[in-house]
């Protein structure tokens, strides 16, 4: 058992020192990989920031989607109250607000304050009372409308179906495009790392062959390269996070002024989570890239 532990630490020591030596010996190549990874991850960061902001913004827009149920003038008050209670208990519903006939008239008067001539043509109060329902999930708007139409107190239901559909289309497109772009960027970064490490592996192919012939295991040969890839990926990630960290505040201000009609607001620890994500992606890409590069040279 102690022998196994000693062995393990010997292998770790060997792998770490070999990786460091290789990284330094091929420093021009390593730096190229670090910068390539940093550029890719910078784009990835930018994209994640934009998509996250868009998601928050679109989420806010979705919040505004509502359904208006116009009530019958003859609907009994008790029935209207019961209906509101049922709606509040409904899992699809975020908020219910009741607008009486008088409230509706008051709102109309306010909206037409500078067109009193139009208001003078109105006699009595032709406006119906209504219940405005805000949804938790804009995707379920049709379901809720169908449920409302079944209510006996409801005369008619309006929903901004076109607005909702467009909104959903934009949201979904942005999310899909985001995922596709991020996947593409990860692919490109992987390609750069694979080729960099491949050069390092190629430079040491003779050593690898000899290692195989004197009885080294595949993982013993692989570890230093995997670590070297991880060093490249992680360095790129740190560089990226440093740049993003410096540029994040000004960029956020710019973005907010660009879309100030939306309440965009990301959590305070978003930059931290982004840096964590970047580091994880850097490590994963570095390790995966090296693994792929070494594989071909292990068949001896």
């Amino acid at each position, binding site marked *: 058992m102690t022998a196994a532990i*000693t*062995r*393990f630490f*010997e*292998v770790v020591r*060997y792998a770490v020192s070999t990786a460091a030596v290789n990284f330094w010996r091929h420093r021009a190549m390593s730096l190229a990989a670090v910068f390539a990874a940093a550029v890719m991850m910078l784009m990835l960061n930018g994209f994640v920031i934009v998509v996250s902001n868009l998601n928050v913004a679109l989420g806010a827009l979705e919040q505004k989607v509502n359904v208006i149920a116009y009530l019958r003038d003859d609907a009994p008050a008790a029935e209207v109250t019961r209906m509101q209670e049922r709606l509040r208990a409904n899992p699809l519903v975020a908020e219910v607000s009741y607008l009486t006939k008088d409230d509706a008239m008051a709102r109309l008067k306010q909206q037409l304050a500078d067109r009193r001539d139009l208001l003078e043509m109105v006699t009595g109060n032709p406006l119906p009372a209504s219940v405005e329902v805000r949804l938790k999930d804009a995707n379920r708007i049709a379901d809720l409308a169908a449920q409302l139409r079944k209510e006996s107190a409801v005369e008619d239901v309006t929903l901004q179906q076109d607005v909702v559909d467009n909104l959903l289309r934009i949201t979904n497109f942005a999310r899909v495009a985001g995922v596709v772009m991020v996947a593409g960027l990860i692919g490109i970064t992987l390609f750069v790392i694979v080729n960099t490490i491949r050069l390092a592996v190629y430079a040491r192919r*003779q*050593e690898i*062959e*000899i*290692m*195989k*012939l*004197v*009885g*080294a*295991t*595949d993982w*013993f040969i692989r570890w230093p390269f995997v670590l070297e890839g991880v060093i490249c990926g992680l360095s790129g990630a740190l560089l990226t996070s440093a740049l993003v960290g410096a540029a994040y505040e000004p960029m956020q201000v710019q973005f907010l002024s660009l879309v100030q009609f939306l309440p965009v607001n990301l959590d305070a620890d978003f930059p931290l989570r982004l840096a964590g994500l970047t580091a994880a992606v850097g490590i994963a890409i570095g390790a995966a890239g090296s693994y792929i590069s070494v594989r071909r040279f292990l068949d*001896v």
Partner: protein
Amino acid sequence: MIVLHNVTKTYPNGTTALSDVDLQIPERDFCFLVGPSGAGKSTFIRLLIREELPTSGRVFIDGQDLARLRRRDIPHLRRKVSVIFQDFKLLPQKTVFENVAFALEVSGHSRADVQALVPETLDLVGLSDKADRYPGLLSGGEQQRVAIARALVRRPSILVADEPTGNLDPETAAQTVQLLVRVNALGTTIVFATHNSELVNTLRRRVIALEGGRIVRDQLNAGYE
């Protein structure tokens, strides 16, 4: 114990390097593998460390069928069967000490082991004073001895030497052979591939002669012809 059973090896380009070879080499044996270039000596060695698999027939080392060896067990085979390669296969950017230590490091020996075993082995091959040199600055015979030290340092049970005296002057060649004889006396099986007839004739050991991929002679206490 090395056992070859009806082994035939045909390369993808159609060359048949070995055909129908049946052979047993017991533990602690010292045998010469002789024959002209292209007789199949190198292929025979590649089969022993599973660099190649036979096209048909079987190769056993200590009862283990090499064709059934899992990929991850190949390193263990190669620690048991050490090869001294004809072209030495030394790493030019590592010192003599590091080249020998390398064979221990790959099998995860501790630094203490390395510090103890490497000087001992370098002493055995007479290279203690050259430990810090780089292979490129050594003579052919010295490089040869580094290769031998690397093969020996792990105390393999089988040592295969591929033309180890090929590039050496007669005196150095004789020293190399004496070294291998001593190693054999310590209990290691030695397979010595060569076409140096003088050496074979002097030592009078078991001789396995290959020609055109077939065993044409297998004789104890024999000479080259």
